[in-house]
């Protein structure tokens, strides 16, 4: 059962924290002051590292040591990478990869 008020509160907290993070730098560094150098550096170097972290995060529940040995994740993940390197079409890579993963999970390694 859905706990209505608690659910509303969770959605509100997620929305507020997300917006807060997006507005934060504009409040802190938005005045006349110049942005500290190290912050500018992180602004460039950090995004690729964070995307990499999110990829690892997405695979965190894969089980390489027991059946199905993370094979559905691995196969679909590699398929997405190849498709995207080749066609650069987000719908094709994300949509195709998801359908492939669902098929692998539900049929092949069921």
């Amino acid at each position, binding site marked *: 059962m859905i706990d209505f008020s608690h659910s509303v509160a969770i959605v509100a907290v997620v929305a507020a924290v997300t917006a807060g993070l997006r507005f934060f730098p504009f409040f802190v560094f938005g005045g006349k002051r110049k942005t500290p150098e190290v912050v500018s550096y992180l602004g460039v*170097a950090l*995004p690729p590292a964070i995307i990499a972290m999110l990829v690892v995060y997405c695979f965190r529940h894969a089980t390489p040591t027991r059946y199905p040995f993370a094979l559905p994740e691995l196969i679909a993940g590699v398929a997405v990478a190849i498709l995207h390197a080749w066609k650069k079409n987000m719908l094709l890579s994300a949509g195709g990869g998801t359908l492939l993963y669902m098929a692998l999970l539900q049929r092949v390694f069921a």
Partner: protein
Amino acid sequence: MEKTIRTAFVKSLPVMAGYLALGFGFGVLAAQAGYGPLWVLAMSVTIYAGAMQYLAVDLLANHATLVATAVATFMVNARHIFYGVTMIDKYRNAGKYKPYIVFGMTDETYSLTCDGKSPEGTDFPRFAFWLTLFDHLYWIAGCVLGAVVGTLVEFDSRGVDFAMTALFVAVFVEQWKGTRRHRPALVGVAVSVLALLAFGPDSFLIPATLGICVVLIGGRRFFETKNEMETPTAQAVANDAAEKEGGR
């Protein structure tokens, strides 16, 4: 349609496909967890953050505490602070457009605007505003559509959350191809895997984020080469959009 809006629309087209697919996946997932189209509409309008909305379904389904919710949101979306940092000067004079642009600064919208450029004869903040709005509308449409289908049709949705994984893998590939400087991305992979092994799947995001920051700042001279550090996503996406426009 006036030029600013038209060019913003054209530039937003690559995001349309991704957001419809990703939003659809989220909508189905939420609906199957008992949160129908109205919930999904409210979430996609007010939260508007892809990965976080997927995670929010987990939090909702598990009746997470508000403190745990706030911490999880902070960890997953902390990267947005750094997006904002790179846009402070570019949006300094954005005026009335600023609040909405900043609110809607998702990974994809950021990747399209972070070069701070807009087509000739158009005003950048106004261009960014429309781009943000188009992307937001695709996201809302995809999410609600998924929730409607997920509510009406009974089907085996196991694995649909892979849409989020697929998105990040694709963005990772795009960034990788858009730059010759791969060290920050490799640091991200290495530190995250180590943190995952050390702290386990449910609590490695905080140590991983901190570890990445420490390594990147500590090894700054190793990671930074002047004039070569660029914003790869923007680069890749801009090239991509240019190719598409050229082919029109």
